[in-house]
């Protein structure tokens, strides 16, 4: 008993640097931000309790609704597109051909390029007049959109940018694909299954736990999209450069609007309220995904 007690104390002491850091820099800010969400707080003066005023004001705020819609759009479209692209790339890179390690490196490298640098690069690739993509579209006689000035194309531009950096998704899928026992496919071959049947009946069910993980991580990532939208707003060139949110606020995302409320408008209370609303929405969607996962996720041994 005494030894167990001593071991517990020793364990806690070893873990204490992390515990203290967690309490001060993570848990405390989380709890205090919940309180700030009910206050009028600018960081320069003490907070004044205002009850639900921040939450009421948010639901009347056009830019809040716009930022939420934009973020939900990205989550709804970018998530499945990136997962499909990541999985497709992983399957291609799972083939047994010469030089495969080189190809895997090439496909992975974009995901380690810093987001800011990658975004500045893509601002030029997607330039309406001189960009590489529009020049390719021109060769095929396809309409060349004004990617960063036309509000209908700004989010699709971001989705294209996101597809380029799916290296992390790809590598996780690749590892999972390599874990699928070959005997499953051999049995399927004996039974006369074609590639599509093998993909639907073997690959997808076996990958389903990994897909679940990737889905949740991607949803959370897309709910927090910030860097690309910020850099495009600052580096996007003429037009409305200097006005955040892009053309008609089409790339005003939730996280960017939180930032502006906090540091440009000095509305820390409103920003805190927004952060908690985001947490509730993300938690709800994550719960929904977990709830439905019983129907489509099969774990090993089932």
């Amino acid at each position, binding site marked *: 008993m005494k030894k167990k007690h001593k071991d517990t104390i020793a364990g806690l002491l070893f873990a204490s640097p992390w515990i203290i850091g967690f309490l001060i820099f993570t848990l405390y800010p989380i709890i205090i931000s919940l309180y700030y969400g009910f206050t009028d707080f600018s*960081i320069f003066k003490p907070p004044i309790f205002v009850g639900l005023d921040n939450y009421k004001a948010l639901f009347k705020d056009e830019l809040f609704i716009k930022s939420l819609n934009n973020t939900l759009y990205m989550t709804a479209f970018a998530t499945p597109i990136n997962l499909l692209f990541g999985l497709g790339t992983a399957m291609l890179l799972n083939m047994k051909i010469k030089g495969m390690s080189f190809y895997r490196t090439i496909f992975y490298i974009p995901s380690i390029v810093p987001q800011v640098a990658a975004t500045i690069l893509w601002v030029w690739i997607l330039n309406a007049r001189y960009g590489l993509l529009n020049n390719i579209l021109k060769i095929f006689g396809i309409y060349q959109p004004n990617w960063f000035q036309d509000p209908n194309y700004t989010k699709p531009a971001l989705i294209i940018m996101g597809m380029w950096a799916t290296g992390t998704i790809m590598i996780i899928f690749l590892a999972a694909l390599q874990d699928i026992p070959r005997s499953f496919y051999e049995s399927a071959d004996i039974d006369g299954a074609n590639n599509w049947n093998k993909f639907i009946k073997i690959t997808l069910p076996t990958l389903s736990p990994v897909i679940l993980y990737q889905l949740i991580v991607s949803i959370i990532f897309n709910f927090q999209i910030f860097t690309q939208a910020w850099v495009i707003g600052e580096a*996007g*060139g003429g037009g409305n*450069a200097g*006005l955040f949110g892009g053309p008609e606020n089409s790339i005003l995302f939730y996280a960017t609007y939180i930032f502006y409320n906090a540091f440009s408008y000095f509305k820390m209370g409103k920003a805190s309220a927004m952060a908690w609303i985001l947490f509730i929405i993300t938690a709800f969607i994550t719960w929904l995904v977990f709830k439905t996962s019983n129907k489509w996720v099969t774990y090993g041994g089932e």
Partner: protein
Amino acid sequence: MLKKFSKITVLLLTASMVSGLFIGCGKAKPTVAVVKTDVNFWYLWGGAEGKRVESIISDYNKSQKKYNVKGLYVADMQKVKVAIAGGSGPDLTDDFNGNIASYADEGIVEPLDSYIKRDKIDFKDSLTGVMDTCKYNNKTYAMPGGVTFFMLFYNKKLLAKAGFTAPPKTNTELLNMAIKTTEVNKDKSINVLGFPDFPFVYYHSNLIASFGGKLYSPDGKFTPDTPESISALNLLRNYRTKFGVDNVLKFDQSGKYTQATDPFMTGNQVFRIDGQWLPGIIRNDLKITKDQLDFGICPLPTLDGQTATQPIAEASSSIFYITANGKNKEGAWDFLKSAVISGVWDEKMGTLPIKKSLLDNKVYADIPNFKDFADFAKQATFVSAPANAKMVEINKMFGDEAELAVTMKKTAEEAMKEAATKGNTILGK
């Protein structure tokens, strides 16, 4: 005997100690080192400009014995604000005049009227209207570091090519010249942009001012729906309708502001609304010669039928403010007086001075096209929107509505009426 001897010894020792003290006092004065008190000055300028800031600081430190200004380049304004909030911010820092009202409302800025009155500083020599950029609710909260306003740049060669010998004076002349100087490719994409559409962010409010309009009424209401504001938007709408919104926007995307790809620098833009820094960037930074780009500068056009005798321009400025929780406000004020109010800052940084008497200073002789801006400043009246704590929010909303007007999603009248309603809701009026 021994007792008597001890008594004498003690007396003698005491006497020698006491006399030693007096000797010490009489012989040499005690030396007290003069210690300068520190003044923390955080500034936004980096690179070559940052070096000039440090040179100003160094000269000031050498010129007096009371204060030691310590400069620190802090590019991130959020960092400055958070530091001030946490009590570890600077004594003096710089910002843009549009922010001063919200800072004053938050109580982070030291009012300067008592310092001005105490040291008997007058601003009679200041350019008309410039000191208003630092006031809020009739109190002075900052000092301007140079004045910024915009003029119309034009490409002389492209203008002459279209048969024009002089730049436009009115909105109608500008539109006419812009249309005639625009060059379009076979696929209707624009090769040379006639209109000062790029960068759009400098366009609207500056034209409103030159048209004689105001964005705020005397009672502080937001009034973007004036005829002048609507005329400025319709001018741009008319141009974009002629050549296609999509084509103009694609052109706007083709270059990066003040970089080598900037359409004015590449000779692909005829008219441009910009500030006094542009000639320096063209000639000194990008090394574009007169043969490559010969440009002129003139005042922004007025509205047809206007009979104003004095040109009007919207002014803004970089400002310096003393933080309310700064530890050395007197030191910060002394530096402001010596380096900024005196005009030394403007001389060394090459910014347009706020003092009329300094506009002809020889130090500006090497700055490209400085004279164009100085000559205009001598005769102009400068206006600025009265500071309010919601300015950042209002400017964002105003820009959004103006964008809808110039992309034809709304008429200019609809957009500006909506902007007025929303702006006054934000202001609580």
